[in-house]
């Protein structure tokens, strides 16, 4: 069953075309990542789905129904705003936002306690949100979407600005929410680890257009290249770098050009690069094969688009 269907969505802000005729679908119960460089239209897409932005063209359906009549199915946490009342405690916030949706009573009170417990917020339940850490605030905001008990949760950059610990924490929470509570989650992010670890599908945007849309698994297969890491004894000069680029492989220069990463599709290709390095008298310290990762796939897709 389709939880979200976006058809030919187009949105202009004045003359700026933020979203350009995009279409995609999300199956019920899946976690879908929406990726793309800054300004590619992720937030605009998410807010259009939430009916906070009225698009210029296109339809959005939630479980087959127009999204303007589907408020009870959707909750969201937005990026760059507070989402919560900072002068209220986590418990008061959850109660308030449930009330805003006309929910209350003993069942909600119980659920609030269960959620606070689940998110390890019980000992902070009476502290003003203002005084909580960024990670905890984000957890309260996510708990808020759960107390509203909607089937669909939209999260705009849920791990932005979190430390490693909080990041892992929220990542696990989201995976758990989707599987054990059977929620459909659409999240935007710049974090490829998050995508690789918890997303089922991705939609990749660039300049307001969908440039790829598939399951994470398929994309990983499709781009199953071998990534080699070549560590050099010293950093490359500019002319050496240009010379290497001339052999037309996907080369990435890292660590002040003392490390080259390359995606190859045939093991023989690595010799071309080694030959080139030999020709230029560049000393190789180490060569090793890297695991395929989503970050590289993402860069491949978006770079292809640029070229």
């Amino acid at each position, binding site marked *: 069953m389709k939880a979200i269907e976006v058809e030919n969505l187009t949105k202009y802000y004045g003359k700026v075309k933020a979203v350009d005729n995009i279409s995609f679908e999300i199956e019920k119960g899946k976690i879908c990542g929406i990726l793309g460089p800054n300004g590619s239209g992720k937030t605009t897409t998410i*807010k259009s789905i*939430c*009916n906070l*932005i009225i698009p210029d063209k296109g339809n959005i359906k939630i479980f087959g129904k127009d999204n303007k009549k589907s408020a009870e199915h959707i909750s969201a946490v937005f990026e760059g705003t507070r989402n919560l009342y900072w*002068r*209220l405690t986590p418990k008061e916030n959850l109660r308030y*936002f449930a009330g*805003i*949706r*006309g929910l209350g009573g003993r069942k909600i009170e119980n659920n609030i306690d269960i959620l606070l417990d689940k998110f390890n917020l019980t000992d902070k339940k009476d502290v003003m949100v203002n005084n909580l850490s960024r990670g905890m605030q984000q957890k309260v905001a996510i708990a808020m979407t759960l107390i509203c008990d909607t089937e669909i949760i939209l999260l705009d950059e849920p791990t932005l600005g979190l430390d490693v610990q909080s990041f892992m924490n929220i990542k696990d929470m989201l995976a758990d929410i989707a599987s054990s509570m059977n929620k459909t989650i659409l999240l935007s992010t710049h974090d490829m680890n998050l995508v690789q670890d918890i997303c089922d599908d991705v939609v990749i945007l660039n300049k307001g257009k969908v440039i790829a849309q598939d399951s994470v698994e398929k994309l990983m297969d499709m781009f199953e290249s071998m990534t080699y890491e070549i560590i050099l004894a010293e950093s490359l000069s500019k002319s050496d770098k240009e010379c290497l680029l001339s052999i037309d492989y996907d080369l990435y220069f890292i660590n002040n050009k003392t490390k080259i990463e390359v995606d190859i599709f045939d093991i023989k290709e690595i010799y071309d690069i080694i030959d080139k390095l030999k020709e230029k008298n560049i000393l190789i310290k180490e060569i090793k094969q890297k695991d395929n990762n989503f970050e590289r796939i993402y860069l491949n897709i978006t770079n292809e688009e640029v070229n």
Partner: protein
Amino acid sequence: MKKFYYLFKVSVEKIFKELKRYKFNTISDLILFYVLFMAMFLGIQGFGTSLGVSSADMGDSLEGFIIGYFLWTVMIMSFVDIAYNVIDDANKGTLEQLNMSNINLSQILVVRSMANLLVNVLLSIVLLFIIMYTTNKWIELKILSIVIPIFIGIFSILGIGLICGGLALIFKKIQSLLNLAQFFLIGLVTVFPKSKFISGLIPFNYVAGKIFFIVLGGNSFVDLSVLDYGIMIGNSIFYFAIGLLVFNQCVKIAKKKGLLGQY
């Protein structure tokens, strides 16, 4: 109906929580109101004495003054509550959350405003008693007889609040105008046109007149005619409906322009 009950309940709770959490603010606000009132009151008395009016005759005007002041604060509170809360929530970044409810934003704002009104009327009545105690002028407060017309009339003010709140969503510089608008509202409860018809066209004006009639004339809410109620209800429905219309239209424009997010 149950959903509005929960909405009302959490709104009242939030107001009390914030009053308590901003103890200092709450108390200083109350003191300010009190001092302001006393200053105006003593000013009038001094004015009366200098004109050679005996303090016995001051009684009537004092009552009128107290009621006028009371009405004004009630009005300001409901008007300010809607308009300022929209701005406040937009600033805080919670307006989008409110907008995602299955309850329409205008309805949320109205219910929240009613909650605020309830709390403020309670506080005002307490303040009124303190004022009467310190001035030792006791006026007979027929709470029910005042509250009924206020409840009917306040919807016209809520309508105006919705109009201002809606405009504030689109025109970000409107905040300074709101401050001015408050003082124009004084006119609504102090200037009464001779004609019933004209008074009935001005928001809240007819209701305010009737409240003076009740309090100063020693009347009760049953002394108002069917026509009186008709005018009061008609006036409220008219302005409230326009308020809803304008507000919902403004929300639509804001959603088209992507203005709901950052203020």
